[in-house]
């Protein structure tokens, strides 16, 4: 069979197709069709010719097979040091073979490559730090995902996810109406406790344009009201766009570069339309990666920068604490052992290690903060990055992958983990569910709200 009804080389571009694909519960038919899907070898060879350039080819070609990458990979460590989990092996046996055979590979090969690309690598980029040549297999697996996606070999959820971005410009089928209604509803609810609080939509020339992860309006609307409370207390002149508010990109996980471009350009269009001084994104790692780190390149910006300065939430929060816009009540500082999860996407891959630790210095009583080992840019992936959290087919492998983070947390002795990243937060929640080690985990927003000093003029008036 050349192409299936669901499993094929065509991206999902209409709501109708999206609903049909969602209707195939668990991707049963989708994966059955995948077993029959032909490889378009000519297309694959053309992709290689156009996109596999000297950086990737030299990496593949020059790898000295020294094996120093093995111990750098948390998936190698938590799978009983299975040699098949050595990063160099994983990439050489997938992308390396595709390049060597110039795309002349068959269906079984592609299905195996899909399994490796999405269940044996989270694109955390840690191996690249330990290779003497700086060969970054996370970059190469991300590239490999792009090749696999273009041939239709992509996990069901991620085909849907990238389709969501194409159809709704947001994952989890959240529409712009859903979003603005959620903002209005959250503002209304919060006003009882916070008189004068607003979530201004589409305000021109604000100091800050705030963007989120679609799962906040979908599942965690309180995250939006917490952001509003903090901007309110800090006295910020801020706004959210009615469209272009969604910062995440499941298409980044899927390797759907066209959808990545569509998505990020949509956010940049909101910046152009509203002309804020800066943009601030929520506590999410891959959202920041998609919009701020890789996004400028997808949008074709030669300077590699966003149209306006675009801060990760931790950068804004550190600034607000530093400048005293938000003050922490010393009596309420955390006085239990607490540790911090470094998100690969904005710590290793964006250098914000000092920023998150600065925040910790305001929130945690001295002596109670315990670093994980290793930490900062050398930290391990939470276990659920790169889309791993969301793929049902690879749930078992994902759960096993959580063991490294579990042990890192256990070694700190901390019972609270600060996790300013949606993906890490989910993975840590799941590891508690899976292994029951008795920890709590939190984003920064609720912690700060619970311990900040509320200026008198912002406090609710006592009823007479």
């Amino acid at each position, binding site marked *: 069979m050349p192409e299936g009804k669901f499993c094929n080389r065509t991206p999902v571009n209409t709501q109708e197709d999206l609903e049909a694909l969602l209707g195939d519960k668990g991707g049963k038919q989708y994966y059955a069709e995948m077993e029959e899907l032909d490889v378009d070898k000519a297309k694959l060879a053309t992709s290689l010719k156009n996109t596999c350039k000297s950086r990737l080819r*030299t990496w593949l070609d020059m*790898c*000295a097979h020294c094996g120093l990458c093995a111990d750098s990979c948390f998936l190698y460590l938590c799978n009983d040091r299975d*040699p098949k989990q050595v990063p*160099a092996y994983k990439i050489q046996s997938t992308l390396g073979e595709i390049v060597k055979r110039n795309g002349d590979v068959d269906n079984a090969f592609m299905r195996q490559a899909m399994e490796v690309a999405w269940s044996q690598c989270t694109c955390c980029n840690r191996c690249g730090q330990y290779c*003497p040549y700086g*060969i970054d297999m996370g970059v190469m697996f991300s590239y490999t995902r792009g090749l696999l996606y273009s041939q239709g070999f992509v996990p069901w959820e991620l085909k849907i996810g990238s389709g969501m971005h194409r159809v709704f410009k947001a994952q989890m089928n959240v529409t712009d109406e859903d979003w603005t209604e959620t903002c209005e509803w959250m503002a209304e609810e919060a006003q009882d406790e916070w008189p004068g609080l607003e979530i201004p939509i589409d305000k021109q020339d604000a100091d800050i344009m705030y963007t989120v992860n679609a799962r906040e309006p979908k599942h965690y609307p309180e995250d939006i009201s917490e952001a509003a409370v903090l901007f309110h207390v800090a006295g910020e002149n801020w706004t959210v766009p009615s469209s272009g508010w969604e910062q995440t990109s499941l298409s980044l996980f899927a390797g759907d570069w066209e959808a990545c471009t569509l998505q990020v350009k949509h956010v940049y269009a909101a910046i152009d339309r509203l002309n804020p001084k800066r943009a601030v994104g929520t506590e999410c790692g891959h959202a920041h990666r998609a919009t701020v780190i890789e996004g400028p390149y997808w949008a074709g910006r030669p300077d*590699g920068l966003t149209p306006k300065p675009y801060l990760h939430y931790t950068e804004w929060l550190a600034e607000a604490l530093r400048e005293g816009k938000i003050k922490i009540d010393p009596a309420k500082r955390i006085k239990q052992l607490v540790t911090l999860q470094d998100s690969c996407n904005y710590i290793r891959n*964006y250098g914000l290690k000092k920023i998150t630790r600065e925040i910790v210095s305001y929130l945690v009583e001295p002596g109670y903060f315990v670093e994980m080992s290793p930490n900062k840019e050398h930290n391990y992936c939470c276990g659920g990055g790169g889309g791993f959290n969301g793929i049902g087919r690879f749930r078992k492998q994902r759960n096993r992958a959580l063991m490294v983070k579990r042990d890192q947390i256990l070694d700190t002795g901390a019972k609270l983990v600060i996790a300013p990243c949606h993906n890490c937060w989910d993975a840590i929640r799941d590891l508690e569910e899976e292994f029951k080690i008795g920890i709590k985990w939190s984003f920064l927003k609720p912690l700060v709200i619970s311990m900040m000093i509320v200026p008198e003029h912002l406090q609710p008036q006592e009823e007479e």
Partner: protein
Amino acid sequence: MYQIITGPLLWLTFLVFVGGLAWRVYTYVKGLDWKLDRVAYGTQTAHGVRGAANSILSWVVPFGSQGWKVKPIFTIMFFVFHIGIVITPLFLLGHAVILKMRFGISWPALPMYMADILTVGMMIAGVCIIVRRIALPEVRIITSFYDYLLLVITIAPFFTGFMAVHQLGGDYKVWLYAHIISGEVMLLAIPFTKLFHMVGFFLTRGQIGMDYGIKRGGMKGTNMAW
């Protein structure tokens, strides 16, 4: 025989070696693509150069990077092997004498005992690297015949040279010829095999350093702690 291998063949070797390397460096740099690699090489060059320097320096210094620190035994083997390979042929007394006799160039030379220490150290490290390839499952799985062949190509000029210099194992002339030929084979192999890393190391390390120096934190003022 001696005339050929130290005359035309040697010159041809140098020509292919230098020309081949130059071609590979040219095609590598030309193939870098800011959009595909997603690194603004051309517009954020100052940040890139800083990142590249940090990346290269951290890894050319023994124990300069986290990667070296966590593998101390391998790191020692690695540096003994590579220092021997680079320093010995460049500053061997015998080679300096040839330069003086043929071209009148005065070239500094190592004392013989130092050259011996470096050569023997390099050969021992080479053997350890081979044993490591066989012994460790994580290295064995990615090792192919080609990797051993490259090690043989690399060690051969040192082994034969050592035998010739110390007149061990029979006719020294045979060892000398073998030394010259194996040295030429090694030089010829460099542009066409993984041995390209002699130059390629600086290119790929520089590239990933630029990536970190520009996109992954460098422009935020964070130096990657390699």
